[in-house]
């Protein structure tokens, strides 16, 4: 057993900390958000130069062969900085589909563009009636010669407005919620028939509603097995959830730091408010919630590459539950212990609270996963 980082991983973490420290001060972040796309292309190029965008891809495909731990380190830094750039959408989700579902030819074509920062990807899964059920797909894929025609609507597509290519699920056959009959397609975002309505999200990031109307794609647009794409989606989403857990931990850690700092500086009744025992205990409870979340984010990272899908799914659900619950407690208390200041847009802590709250709504909230886990028979107990 070894929870320590390797030398290389430590270097990565240091350079991430430096990057966030130098480039992601609160005011800088505000400025990036003012860009037309809501994030900074210039920083994106820097991430490329630092090798962050090619991190999880095999060297043969033009990446640097990082694994789940590397992704965890990046995502935690993203959480600490409340980073706006589409790393999760492009590298974690989009990249995941290429790694697990793209053939060698496609990977060699697309991965270098991700790694050099020229291609943004987005994953269109959610539909108006699907909630978080990955098998609930109404978007249709019809055979058209050797290719396909796609029709349907995808919602809350993270960074769907910035993406150069979209990855969407569509149904080749079967009923609305059948596990069989789902295909995954890589589509040019500028293809005729695609319209996108981009918007800011509650936490200051971006998403889009995407309509596909008679969008024609070739046979080579299919990722994984046509009609048997759900296991691929689940695998990529599980990796995604592990990454989100790490991001949430980064954000929670900052909320806890800010709160403890505030308890030590804010004075009322002639003393630091941190001298009130009830607030000390609350800060300790926040720490416990944070550490529980951190442990589960590590667990999720460890299990993200698990080949046994059932074990992997259970582990990921367990982590998402813990993150959701801890995130809610840490976020709510961070606001509460700051008093009025915590409620203001001008102060950092509320932005972290909003991000962590929104992470709970992506790929299933704590309750959704709790139900799913309970239905499957509960969390695997460590052996």
């Amino acid at each position, binding site marked *: 057993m070894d929870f320590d980082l390797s030398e290389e991983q430590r270097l990565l973490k240091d350079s991430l900390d430096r990057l966030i420290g130098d480039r992601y001060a609160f005011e800088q972040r505000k400025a990036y958000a003012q860009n037309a796309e809501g994030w900074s292309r210039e920083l994106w190029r820097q991430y490329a130069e630092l090798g962050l965008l090619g991190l999880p891809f095999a060297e043969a495909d033009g990446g640097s062969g990082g694994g789940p731990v590397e992704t965890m380190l990046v995502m935690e830094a993203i959480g600490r900085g409340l980073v706006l750039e589409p790393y999760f959408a492009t590298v974690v989700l989009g990249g995941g589909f290429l790694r697990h579902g793209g053939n060698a030819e496609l990977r060699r074509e697309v991965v270098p563009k991700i790694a050099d920062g020229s291609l943004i990807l987005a994953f269109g899964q959610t539909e108006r009636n699907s909630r978080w*059920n990955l098998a609930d797909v109404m978007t249709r894929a019809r055979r058209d010669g050797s290719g396909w025609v796609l029709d349907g609507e995808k919602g809350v597509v993270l960074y769907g407005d910035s993406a150069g290519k979209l990855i969407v699920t569509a149904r080749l056959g079967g009923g609305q919620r059948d596990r069989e009959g789902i295909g995954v397609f890589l589509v040019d975002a500028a293809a005729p028939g695609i319209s996108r309505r981009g918007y800011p999200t*509650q936490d200051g990031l971006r998403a889009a509603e995407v309509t596909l109307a008679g969008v024609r794609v070739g046979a080579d647009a299919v990722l994984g097995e046509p009609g048997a794409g759900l296991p691929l989606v689940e695998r990529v989403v599980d990796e995604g959830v592990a990454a989100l857990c790490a991001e949430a931990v980064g954000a929670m850690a900052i909320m806890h730091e800010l709160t403890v700092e505030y308890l030590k500086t804010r004075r009322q*009744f002639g003393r630091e408010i941190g001298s009130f025992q009830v607030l000390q205990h609350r800060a300790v409870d926040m720490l416990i919630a944070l550490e529980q979340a951190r442990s589960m984010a590590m667990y999720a990272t460890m299990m993200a590459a698990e080949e046994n899908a059932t074990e992997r799914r259970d582990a990921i659900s367990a982590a998402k539950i813990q993150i959701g619950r801890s995130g809610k407690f840490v976020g709510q208390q961070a606001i509460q212990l700051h008093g009025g200041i915590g409620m203001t847009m001008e102060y950092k802590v*509320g932005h972290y609270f909003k991000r962590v709250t929104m992470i709970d709504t992506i790929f299933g909230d704590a309750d959704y996963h709790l139900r799913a886990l309970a239905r499957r028979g509960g969390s695997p107990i460590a052996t």
Partner: protein
Amino acid sequence: MDLRFTPEELAFRDEVRTFFHENLPESIRTKLVEGKKLAKDDIVTWQRILNKKGWAVANWPVEWGGTGWTPVQQYIFQEELQLTPAPQPLGFGVTMVGPVMIAFGSETQKKHFLPRIANLEDWWCQGFSEPGSGSDLASLRTAAKRDGDHYIVNGQKTWTTLAQHADWIFCLVRTDPQAKKQEGISFLLIDMKTPGITVRPIITIEGGHEVNEVFFDDVNVPVENLVGQENKGWDYAKYLLGRERTGIARVGLSKERIRRIKELAALERDGERPLIEDERFREKLAAVEVELKALEMTQLRVVAAERHRTDNRPDPASSILKIKGSEIQQATTELLMEVVGPYALPYQPEREDDDRWNEPPIGPEWAGPIAPTYFNWRKTTIYGGTNEIQKNIVAKAILGL
């Protein structure tokens, strides 16, 4: 002991309910149901409707336009407002500065201001908190120095709710810097148009503008705007803060939210069936409803005990109502987050010019205000004395710790 309303009380409830349904403009009700912000005009319109009926300042003595209702009737009235839902009469005037003037103000103040409060000619805001004085309110530093027949006010107030609409602000100011901190405070009425006052918006985390900073730079206030005696302001403030025993728990508002949760959870599908049919969701909802019922009963006990009270001292039971009431309100906003699911994410700010805003909504048409309300409602455990401070009060005043 009979926990039910009497036939007379029930008849009264029906009368109030009918009046609200017949007289509240539908556009205002819809905004409240959908969790949207009210415009200043909405609040003014409604208060004037109530005033015409003689119900604008229901809690005041009859002499000043009050209704003479029993505490139970007052409670029913509040409850029906929240259930309709209709706007609450602006509290800063009706439940705060009005009663303080009635108890401690001069005849001139009463004659001039009270009818204007009832008809919402003057919009009042509350200038108590300062950047350095929140929970420890008595440490406030905004200074008022006597200069002939004026006070000169310098300092800063903050978190001032709806000061952007206000004509007047009632302030706690320090008139004797030498005295013990509670003993050097006075209660001043200040015209917001006086030169030297600057209002700056504070945007809250969900993106709304409901609080402000208010700066005072050599602001001249005539001495006749002092309420009661100089340096007795702390007593008046305590009177003000302790008066609101009913309504503080906002049971009616939580009931209305729960009704809304059920309505929306029936619309939102979770797989084969509506979310409302999900066992686990129903259990969670029921658990909140049980807490709410218990709170309602607790509140009724406090209301019923009211008629035995002879003094006007703050009732520490109101702290219990505030703590539990705010927690339940927050729980309802969390349940709404669960209902909306992935469509909590799009940020869809409300437009002031709502009517001309015809971009179609993103996701379900009711989704927009849900996450902002969840964020914004964190305030309820902070304002009006934080829940930690309320617990300190209970520990001291009820438990003697």
